[in-house]
Structure formats: structure tokens, C-alpha cells
């Protein structure tokens, strides 16, 4: 790892070029840069961290095998996300459905451990209790319940910080479509999250349609 200092300063695209020329070290650097990022992105699509790690590894394996097809004139990151998204789509298709099997309503009816009950019991306002671990799972589930096209746009925009233009190029739609999908996603999330914490519901965004 004597060249780590130099590899670390290279751009993603330069690393790919160097990897295509035979440098395993360049590949390792790319994995270091993107492993957590892509795994967390995928986890937000598939709602399960272990599955996400598997798919993230598939993605890197594809990069490894496809190194010669990468065109360094284009962005590595866009190419990389595209591969990851295609793997996610394949995953959903294998599962025959992009939705988790248990809907949020059902799980709430199961009662006992629901966040709502916990909040009422502790007498805490929902926004005071945001660090609750259970809450994180519920947020993940709400995102997981979004239709794929809305979930992709929302996660790429909110968590990955991409612009509408970048997302449009990645998903093959116009920035205008991205904008309306993002807005729809936020509204859908609002109504899903409202069920998690009725106290925010009163002030939650109302649907327009």
C-alpha cells in the first residue's frame, strides 16, 4: 500500500483508468470510497442492510468485470449508480414485488410495540423522540413502501444530494419529471409518517388531490 497517498488524491475516473490498466490498488481505493455510500443507498431501496451489502458487492464485482467498458469521459459515479440501480431492479423483480410484505398499517395493528403506543406512554412529542431506534426502522419502512420510481428519485435527491438534472440523466427522464416525482414522494412520505406519530399528523402536509 505504498502508493496509497497518490491513489487517494486521484479522481474516480482516473482510478478507473488506472484500474483498467491493471492496478488492483486503484480498484481497492474505489471500493473504500464507495462501499458505505452505495450500500446505504441500496439499503434505502431494499429496506434490508444484509441484502444491501450483497447487492453492493454485486455492483463492485460488475465494475471489476466491466472495467474495460467504462468510458473515462463520463462520470464514474453516474455509471456506478446506474449499475447499482439495475441490480436493485433485478432484485425487486426476483421478489416479484417492490413492496415489503407487511404494510405499515398491519404492523401498527399488531399494536404492542408500536411507536405510537410508546410515545403516548412516555408522553413525549414525536419530534422529541426522533432518535428512537424504532423510529429509524419506521422511516426506512415508509421509504420502502414508496413506489420504486418515487423512492429512487427521493433517495437520489435527498440522501445522495444529486441535482434533478443528474437524476434525470441517470433514470432517463426529464428534470421536470424528477421534480414532480420528488414532490409526490415527499407527500406520500408525509402521509405514511403521519401514521407513525399522530402528533405530527395534525400539522402534517395535507394532500392536494
Amino acid at each position, binding site marked *: 500500500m505504498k502508493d496509497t497517498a497518490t491513489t487517494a488524491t486521484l479522481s474516480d475516473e482516473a482510478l478507473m483508468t488506472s484500474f483498467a490498466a491493471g492496478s488492483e490498488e486503484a480498484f481497492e481505493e474505489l471500493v473504500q470510497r464507495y462501499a458505505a455510500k452505495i450500500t446505504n443507498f441500496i439499503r434505502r431501496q431494499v429496506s434490508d442492510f444484509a441484502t444491501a451489502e450483497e447487492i453492493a458487492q454485486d455492483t463492485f464485482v460488475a465494475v471489476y468485470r466491466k472495467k474495460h467498458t467504462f468510458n473515462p469521459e463520463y462520470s464514474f459515479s453516474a455509471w456506478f449508480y446506474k449499475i447499482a440501480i439495475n441490480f436493485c431492479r433485478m432484485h425487486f423483480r426476483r421478489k416479484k414485488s417492490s413492496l415489503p410484505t407487511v404494510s405499515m398499517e398491519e404492523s401498527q395493528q399488531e399494536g404492542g410495540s408500536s411507536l405510537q403506543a410508546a410515545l403516548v406512554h412516555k408522553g413525549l412529542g414525536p419530534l422529541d423522540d426522533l432518535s428512537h431506534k424504532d423510529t429509524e426502522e419506521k422511516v426506512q419502512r415508509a421509504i420502502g413502501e414508496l413506489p420504486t420510481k418515487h423512492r429512487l428519485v427521493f433517495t437520489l435527491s435527498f440522501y445522495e444530494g444529486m*441535482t434533478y438534472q443528474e437524476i434525470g440523466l441517470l433514470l432517463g427522464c426529464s428534470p421536470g419529471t424528477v421534480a414532480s416525482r420528488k414532490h409526490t414522494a*415527499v407527500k406520500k412520505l408525509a402521509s405514511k409518517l403521519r401514521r407513525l406519530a399522530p402528533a405530527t399528523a395534525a400539522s402534517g402536509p395535507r394532500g392536494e388531490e
Partner: protein
Amino acid sequence: MNCRRIRKLLTAYTDGELAEENRRAVSEHLAECERCREYAADLSKVLDWAALLRDRQTSPNFLARVKARARAAEKPTSGAFPFPVPRARTALAGLAAACLVFLLGYLAGVTFPRHKYLSQGGPATALSRAFPDKPTAPGDAERLIVGVQRIKMIFGSKLSENAYAQLNEVQFALAKGDKTVVQELQQAEEFVRYKDFAQARRLLDQIEREHPEHALAPYARMTKIFTTEQPGYGWQLLNNSYAALLRDTVINPKQFYNQLAGFQTEVTEYGWQKIVQSAERLNPLNVLDYLEDRLAGGTETL
């Protein structure tokens, strides 16, 4: 602008994605409309919740596993696929076999009359006739490759063996950089042509697995359609998936619309509007979504 229109823009406003004119309109409206301010605050509350989903660390052996799997994948696989796969080296052999099958079909009494377009100057003329309209965007090669595919589909069995082979040649020449995929897809086409849907499906699944860098989603759909014995629609999807394969490919909306005319009886007026709109946005996937919905007896909404 009224509240309703302003609210639709709020997400893009928060993301800093609005053009100056709209940005100012939203900003001025928010300054004087308390209800919209509340609405905006509620939207941002949703984002506060979403922000709770924090990143996690990957397993310590992540890199090691990736490298192990990558090396394993470099080795030729065996047993995954029960018939010879047209990889780069064997693709030409596969095509030759396909041509042989074609020839046998010919000898068995199937006739392939030359289509008049092709007898009057070959694929080049046919291509120029297929694209009489002004191209809508750059990317001649990509447009042509879809054109070739379209000709193959529209003229189908009317093409002579020779003309078909010529079209294949044109397609190879045009498919920059990734001939393997095009060859494999053509192999799949041959399976479909001879109604060997199981083989086609297996090959298509494999193509999708092996080429995750391409948007091959339409293929999976096509296989479903083929296996439910609706080859006409399947061909449609096959054609479209070439467009998806070449990601910068531009579909000429008018051509695309005409191409879809075969579905006219099944699609409502509203449906047609949707199709045309999607085609105009140059996104074949949207059209696929819609048609697939229709075929499944789904709802009218996209």
C-alpha cells in the same frame, strides 16, 4: 399564482431547483400566505424525519469479499446455462447457426419474399425511408441501430435471408463498443422466432445478469410476455429494449407512435395521449409501463 400551484413547486423550491422567475414567485407568495408557509414547514418536517435514517458501516470484510467474488467471476462459469451461450468468441458461430436454421426454414417451404423497399437498394435505402422526418436529436448511429431493429420488426418474415443478414451487419457496425450484447440479444431473438420461449428466457435472464451496466429492464418484461404467448407484444418490447440498451438513443416520437399503432384497438383515447406524451419525452420505459399495465388489465393511471 394560486396556493395550489405554489405548493407543487415547494419541493423544487427547497431543493434550489427552480428557475429565477418561479423562485421569486414562490418566495413572494410565502411572504404573504401563512397557510402556505405552514405547508412548507410541514414538508420540511418530513425531511427531518427522513434524515433520521443514518448511514451504517459496511462489514469489515467487505473489500475482501468483493475481491474474492470478482476473481471467482473472472473464471468461466459452468453449468449455469444448459446450452452454448453466444459469448464474444462463440457469438459468430451462434449467428451462423441461426442463419442455418433460417435457411432450413426456407428449404422447408417457408418463403421470404423480398420486400420492395429492400429490393430497391438494400438496407441503406430502407433506413432512409424509415426516417423521412428530421431527426430530433444527435446520435446518428444510435438512431440508425434502432431503425434497423425497427425494420426487422416491421418487415419481419418479409425480409429475405440475405437482407436480414445485411441488417445484422449494419447493426454490428453501428453498435459501438458493445457488440457482445447485441449479438446475444439477436441470439435470443432467434429463440423467440422459433418459439423456444424457455431458451429465450434463460438467455435473456443471463444477459441481464451479465450486463448490469445496461438498462435491460425491458427484457425481463419481454420474457414474461413471450412466455404468456403474446409474441406480437413481445417483439414490440424487444424492439424498445434496443433503445434502452443504447442509453442515448433517441426515439422519434412520430415513428414510435406509428409503430405502436398495432395496439390501437386495446388502448383508449386517454391511453393514447399517455403513450404519445411518453414517447415525446423520449422515454420508452414509460410507454412500456403503460402498455404493460393495460395488458395486465391494470388501471388507467401511469
